[in-house]
């Protein structure tokens, strides 16, 4: 079943257009930086971008920081929101379930396909950014944010891989929201926009000092904690909280999605 879902996802032109667009933004940013040589001042703009001009090897991290606030969550919400609701509105859901494909099985296959999409998206963004960055800006051992000796070779690769994993895990939280909503409504658009509404709300509250009491529990609170991978030693505190928080969101929302989907009357 998972093979079927992967084939459906990656044979869709839309999936590739999404990946292409995701890749385009950091690449365009890189080209502007390379041509004008005008970088954001340190401490301003997306994380790492100021440092990229002097070291292209840091660009994967910068590229992820560029797509993380909006582009990546939109792409993930669209794909995950479409997963069940899209089948329902196309009418194919009833034929799959009457096949019969068990509902739990179908939901698990959908989740794995979305997870595969997230992984591909994050890896492609990081990979392209590495190639683009090292070509345009040259590569040096990675500097770290906390001074310390620069990272080189395997150590640098490890931190990029950790970053990719952390960002992917954060996106799985987005996917869980969208997947749950996808089992509630028959409209893919509704599910995707609903998930985005949750994220926007979370972002607004994160920035609101009056909401400080709930801040540690907001889904987007620790998204940017991956910058801590580039400190020496790695600052695990926020990263650990981020991983655990997303884990709770993923577990609870998937449980809701499962409970709703398995008990639902399919009238689409």
């Amino acid at each position: 079943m998972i093979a079927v879902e992967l084939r459906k996802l990656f044979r869709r032109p839309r999936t590739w257009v999404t990946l292409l667009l995701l890749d385009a933004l950091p690449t365009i940013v890189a080209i502007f930086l390379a041509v004008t040589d005008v970088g954001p001042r340190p401490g301003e703009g997306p994380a790492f971008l100021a440092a990229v001009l002097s070291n292209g090897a840091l660009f994967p991290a910068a590229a992820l920081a560029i797509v993380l606030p909006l582009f990546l969550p939109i792409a993930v919400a669209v794909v995950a929101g479409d997963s069940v609701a899209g089948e329902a509105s196309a009418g194919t859901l009833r034929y799959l379930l009457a096949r019969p494909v068990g509902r739990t099985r179908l939901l698990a296959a959908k989740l794995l396909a979305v997870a595969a999409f997230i992984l591909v998206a994050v890896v492609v963004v990081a990979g392209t950014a590495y190639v683009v960055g090292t070509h345009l800006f040259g590569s040096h051992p990675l500097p770290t944010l906390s001074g310390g000796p620069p990272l080189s070779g395997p150590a640098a690769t490890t931190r990029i891989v950790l970053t990719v994993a952390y960002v992917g895990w954060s996106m799985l939280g987005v996917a869980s929201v969208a997947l749950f909503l996808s089992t509630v409504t028959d409209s893919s658009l509704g599910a995707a926009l609903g998930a985005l509404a949750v994220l926007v709300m979370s972002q607004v509250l994160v920035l609101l000092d009056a909401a400080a009491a709930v801040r540690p529990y907001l889904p987007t609170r620790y998204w940017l904690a991956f910058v801590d991978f580039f400190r020496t030693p790695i600052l695990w505190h926020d990263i650990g909280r981020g991983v655990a928080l997303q884990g709770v969101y993923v577990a609870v929302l998937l449980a809701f999605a499962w409970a709703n989907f398995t008990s639902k009357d399919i009238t689409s």
Partner: protein
Amino acid sequence: MTAIRTTGLTKSFGQLTAVDGVDLEVNEGDRYGVLGPNGSGKTTTVRMLLGLVHPTRGEIELLGNRRLQRALPHVGSLVEAPAAYGHLSGRANLTLMDAAGPGSPRRTRRHRVDEVLETVGLAAVGRRPVKTYSLGMRQRLGLAAALLRRPRLLVLDEPGNGLDPQGIREVRDLLLRLNAEGTTLFVSSHLLAEVEALCTRVAVLDRGRLVVQDDLAALRARTGRILVRTPDAATAVALLDGRLADRQGDRLLITAADPAALNAELVAAGLRIAELRPEVRSLEDVVLAATGPGSDRIA
């Protein structure tokens, strides 16, 4: 063995009881037709049989199995409209559908897909994406998907939808052939003629209740009256005094059991008989007598 048996099958959506205590009994090898006006619960019943809608009360036994998930691999279905992924070809759709769910070995997949495409008359359609298909072609594709694993039971909701008269005839012949090879047919439709031409057993649903379930032949039994058309109607009325049920011009309806005896009696009296035959109820009479108006009529 029974192909479908439901006992007290009931489904409520909030205040509305869509299906109310329905006891279906479909034997293996039957050609079983379910009739009823729009909103009478046909589709909800079909959805419950396929495990899409959970019954509020009641039991379903499919192919001798109370666990639907066990029986469904042997069931092919077409519910309301056919559905497919528009950006893929018909063949790619069938391949995906075949790969989903249990009991479809990869080795013979291509063969199975080719076979059903051939069966429904789509073999030559090629690589065109489904979104370019006509309504009739989509219906054929839906039927092909239903036939993929040589099901023992076919559950079809409005199988003639979108087809031209020629196509309807073709599909009917195909279904008759499959039935002759042992496939049980369960067809729901609001088209009387379609069910009358295809089915041997008929059920009628009305506002969620099963109001008729019988062999078509029994439903269309003689009414115990004989229709006589004669130019000598006035003489006949005088002769048959008391047995006359109805008269419209030269058409007489006479209460009598044996047409041959009646014929002999009339001819012996010197009457000229233009036509004489036992009156038979049409399926339409049966259904209209058993049902109220459809739920789409707002009185």
